[in-house]
């Protein structure tokens, strides 16, 4: 499903070049549950952004679902993101002036789906995440856990094949965090490919596969229960 070969991502910091990713080879099969860990600045977020097509490789190649996406144009990348990839962020990134339902509806609006179908799909996905009674609330009227659930609902409403979560519990209390992890794992057990970047060893231990990154390179790749 995901196939990175000699993937490099360099940044220019002043006059110095920083190798955020330094020759990463990675294969992820459909339906895998992967936790990515590593110290701050190790490049784990960069890896996630590269996989999510929010960032481009400096060198190397990236195949997604058998298609080479290394050199796609900006608009083509946007289309792939829209159809194949869902994102969940540490800080939720909900649009503050929109209700929960409207936030979830956004990807469908961008995709040009008709209003009637949008309504149905939004209702369905809110229902399945236990947010049906929160549909008309704005983000500032929701708890942290509810916000992250809305964000997951937004990511899932387009039925993506891959869900990328960047510290999804980093901004939540323990019980909300557990709730969110439970939802993500349920989705994974239904066949969704799940990649989670986390600091939390307890969370990474739950994944079937754990990648450890240091200085832009994968130093550990463990499989099986942690």
């Amino acid at each position, binding site marked *: 499903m995901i196939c990175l070969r000699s993937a490099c991502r360099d940044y220019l910091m002043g006059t110095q070049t920083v190798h955020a990713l330094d020759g990463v080879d990675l294969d992820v099969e459909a339906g895998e549950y992967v936790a990515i860990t590593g110290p701050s600045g190790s490049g784990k977020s960069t890896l996630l952004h590269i996989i999510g097509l929010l960032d481009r490789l400096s060198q190397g190649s990236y195949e997604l679902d058998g298609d080479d996406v290394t050199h796609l144009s900006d608009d083509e990348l946007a*289309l792939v993101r829209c159809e194949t990839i869902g994102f969940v962020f540490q800080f939720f990134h909900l649009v503050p002036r*929109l209700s929960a339902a409207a936030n979830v509806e956004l990807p469908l609006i961008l995709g040009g789906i008709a209003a009637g179908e949008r309504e149905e799909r939004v209702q369905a996905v809110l229902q399945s995440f236990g947010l049906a009674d929160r549909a008309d609330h704005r983000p500032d009227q929701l708890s942290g856990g509810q916000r992250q659930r809305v964000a997951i609902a937004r990511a899932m409403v387009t039925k993506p094949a891959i869900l990328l979560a960047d510290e999804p519990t980093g901004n939540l209390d323990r019980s909300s965090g557990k709730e969110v992890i439970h939802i993500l794992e349920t989705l994974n057990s239904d066949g969704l490919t799940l990649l989670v970047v986390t600091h939390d060893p307890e969370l990474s231990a739950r994944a079937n596969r754990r990648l450890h990154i240091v200085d832009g390179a994968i130093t550990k790749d463990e499989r099986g229960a942690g």
Partner: protein
Amino acid sequence: MRNRDLIGFAGGAILGHRLRSGLTALGIAVGITAVVLLTSIGEGIHRFVLAEFTQFGTNLIAVMPGKTETLGISAATISNVRPLSLNDSAALGRLPGVIAAVPVVQGNAPVESSGRSRRTMVLGVGSEMPAVWSMGVAAGRFLPADDPRAPRAYAVLGKTLYTELFGDRSALGQRVRVGGDRYRVIGVMAPKGQFLGFDLDDAVYIPTAKALALFNRESLMEIDLLYREDASVDALVKQVHQRLLDRHGFEDFTIVTQQQMLDILGSVLDVLTFAVGALGGVSLFVGGVGILTIMTIAVRERTGEIGLLRAIGARRGQVLQLFLLEALLLAVLGGLAGVGLALGITGLLKLLAPALPVYPSPGYALLALLLAMVVGLISGVLPARRAAALQPLEALRAE
């Protein structure tokens, strides 16, 4: 992305910041109000001045002695210019399409009656003057159609002169002296008012031949022709030109049509309207800068939102559209409010100061609205482009 959703999203963003959007739209509204109001006043003045000039009728041709290319008044002594005579006037009056010809001489002389005297304007005119200059007789009648070369000594008084000389007594049949000669008053004109400083009411009207003798002149000052509504002006001017050429031998006269004068006047007044409109445009420009500012701030503030939209699949073009549309909507809202406000103010002005020439023209209002949209689009381009150019990752990190 569907158009309705585009508008919905942009509209939602505007409603999300009510106060800020309101103030921004207000900037445009003030600009549009200024444009509409000022052009209304310009248009009002336009109409007022044209009405002033057309109060003598529009189907007029004036013939004056001398070719105006020579500049100034032709010196009568050594001139090879033949004066315009009463016979010229009569000849022009017989042209097909011409309803009436009035030979005009103007001067100043004391007018006396029963011990009262007033120095006033003396107009030597033909019997058809009321028709040609669209003036009315209030009492008695106007000068009769005598033999133009030997008219009887009748005079018709303007309203002001009549009041000054006779008070509220009847003037009909009374004798007056104009420059020493005796005349019998046979009529009093209805008031007409001032025109370019000439008080047409403070005047006495006497037959042209008498006035020529009074002022010791050979030439008429002007022949005014009234032509039929359906006559072609150009053809008529040619005929007048030919007839006078036949009579004089060469071109020593000038023909001015009322239409020419109105055209010149009209173009001057158009410039005026445009100039005041441009003044309003300055405030519209300021309003546009307001939109530019607010949209720039909005893009900066909503960097995270833009990043998110890009992350969940919005293309650059869509982000561009959204922010352009937002600027456009702001401008349209402001524009509509401005047009409404301007119409309200002009309505109020008409109620409070009916004398003020204000005339809101729907054409200018529509133009102002279009202008607002253009201003909105232009102001939106820069911020929208900046928004579209943001890398999704950078935009997401900004929050």
